[in-house]
C-alpha cells in the first residue's frame, strides 16, 4: 500500500486516491482540427519515466497534480493545481480559449505554490 502525500490532506494510503491520468493540455475546441481534437481525446504519451498527472483524493474529492515515476512506482512530488500552473512558462496556455465568460478569468499563480514532497 503506497502512501500519497495529498496537498490538502497530507499522507494517506493510496487506496483513498483515484488516478486521473496524464495532464494533457486541451486544444481550443473551437479552433483545433479534427485530427488535433481526436489526438487529444485518444492518444497518450504513456511515458516510462517521470510524468505529471492528475490524482483525486476521493473522500474529500480533491484534485491535485502529482509527479510520478512510472518505472520505479515512486511519487516524486505532489502539488496543488495552482502550484503546477505557476511553474508553467505560460500559465494561461493550459486553459482552453474560446470559452464562455467568466471561465477565462486570469489564473492567479506565484504566491502559494502548495507543493509538497511525496
Amino acid at each position, binding site marked *: 500500500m503506497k502512501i500519497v502525500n495529498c496537498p490538502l490532506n497530507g499522507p494517506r494510503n493510496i487506496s483513498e486516491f483515484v*488516478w486521473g491520468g496524464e495532464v494533457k493540455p486541451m486544444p481550443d475546441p473551437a479552433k483545433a482540427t479534427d485530427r488535433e481534437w481526436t489526438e487529444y481525446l485518444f492518444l*497518450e504519451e504513456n511515458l*516510462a519515466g517521470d510524468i505529471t498527472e492528475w490524482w483525486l483524493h476521493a473522500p474529500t474529492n480533491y484534485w491535485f497534480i502529482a509527479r510520478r515515476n512510472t518505472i520505479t512506482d515512486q511519487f516524486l512530488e505532489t502539488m496543488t493545481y495552482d502550484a503546477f500552473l505557476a511553474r508553467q512558462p505560460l500559465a494561461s496556455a493550459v486553459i482552453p480559449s474560446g470559452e464562455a465568460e467568466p471561465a477565462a478569468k486570469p489564473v492567479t499563480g506565484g504566491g502559494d505554490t502548495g507543493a509538497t514532497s511525496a
Partner: protein
Amino acid sequence: MPFALLKYGLSREHPDDPHFRWKPDLKKTYDVVIIGAGGHGLAAAYHLAKDHGITNIAVLEKGWLAGGNTARNTTIVRANYLTPEGVAFYKESVELFRTLSNELDINVMYSERGHFTLAHTDAAMRTARWRAEVNKHLGVNSEVIDSAEVKRICPTMNVTDEARYPILGALYHPPGAIARHDAVAWGYAKEAMKRGVEVHTQTEVKKILIENGRAIGVETNRGIIHAGKVMQAVAGSSSHVARMAGLKLPIKTIPLQACVSEPVKPILDQIVVSGSLHVYISQSARGEMVMGGATDPYGLYSSRSTLDFKESLMGHMLELFPFMGELRILRQWAGMADMTPDFSPVMGLTPLENYYIDAGWGTWGFKATPVCGKRMAECVATGRQPDLIKPFALSRFSTFDLVGEKGAASVGH
C-alpha cells in the same frame, strides 16, 4: 505409454533434437524485422514463413524468449466477445488454437473447460444476453443461463442469496479454454526457426531507422540491421517502441496482477469470471488455481506485486468459493496491460510506410496469439490490411470509428 516418449525411454542419451537452434550473429539485412519475441511476434514470424514464404526474418527480443506478457498471462482462450468484429476475430483464434498442438508439434495443452461470465446485476444479465445473441449469430457457442444452471454445471460455486452480490445467472461459453501459454510461444519459435527464421534474445531495439517517410531498419544494442519491413509486437512497451517510429498510440500501460495457489486435486473444471466481483479463476492441469482480477488502479511500468490485489481478490473469491479459504497462494506476479479506449487491439498498417503495429492488447492478448500472428503476417506480406482486422486499424481513432467492446470487458478474461 504414448509412443512419442519411447525415443526418450529407449535411447541412452537424451536425443539431440533441440526445439531451438540459436544463431549467434545478426545479419546486416533481413526482409522483415519483428520487434518482440513474445507469442504474437513469433506467431507472425511463423506465418510469414509458412504461409507467405518469407523466411529471412529476425525476431528481436530485449529480454528472454517469450518472457513478457506471454509468460505472465492466465492462459484463458475464448471467443465470447460483444461486438461482431471482436467475435469474428476471436472465433478464428479459437479455431486455430484447437489444432495448434499438431500444427506446431508441441502439446500446448489446449483444454476446453467451459467459461462462465457471472452476472450479479440486471445490467450484467443484459450484457450477457447481448453477447450471447451476437455470439450465436456468428456461430459461437454461448448461452445465457440462470443461477440454477450455473450450480448444475459448477456444483462447488456458491449461488445462494446470502452472498453480498448473489449470482443471477451467467453467460456460459462451452468452448472457453485454457492452454499452456509458454508452449504456445515455444511452438511458434520452434517451427519458425525450423523454417529459417532467426530469433535473437538480449537484443534491444534502440532506434527505428526511417528514410523518406518509410521504415528501413532498426538500430539495436548489437548494431544496425536493415529491413524491408518492420513490425512491432511488444506488449507493455508499445508506446515506447512506437514513439521511436514517430507514432503516438491510444494506450495507457497498466499492470495486471495474477496469482496461483498451491496445487490441489481437481475440484474446478470451468473457467469462472465475475466482472462485478473483479475475479477470475481456473484450475491448471498441474492443479494450481490460476487467478486474477481487474487491472491495477493506475498506470505503471513495473511488475511489482501488491498486497491490496490479493486482499481484494480473495475477499471476492471466497464469496464464490467459500471452501477455498484454507487453500494457499503460492506466488503472485504482474504483467503489463496496454489498455486502449475501446478495449480493442490496434493492428496493421501505420502512417509510417513499411512499419506495422501489433499493440493495445490490454488483458486479451494471449487468446489472440494464433489469429493475430496469422493476420499480421498477411498484413506484412501483402502490405494491405486484411478484412478480419480492418476494424482494429490505428486510424479508427482519428475517424471516431471505435470498437464497442468496452461494455463487456470490465474483467477481460
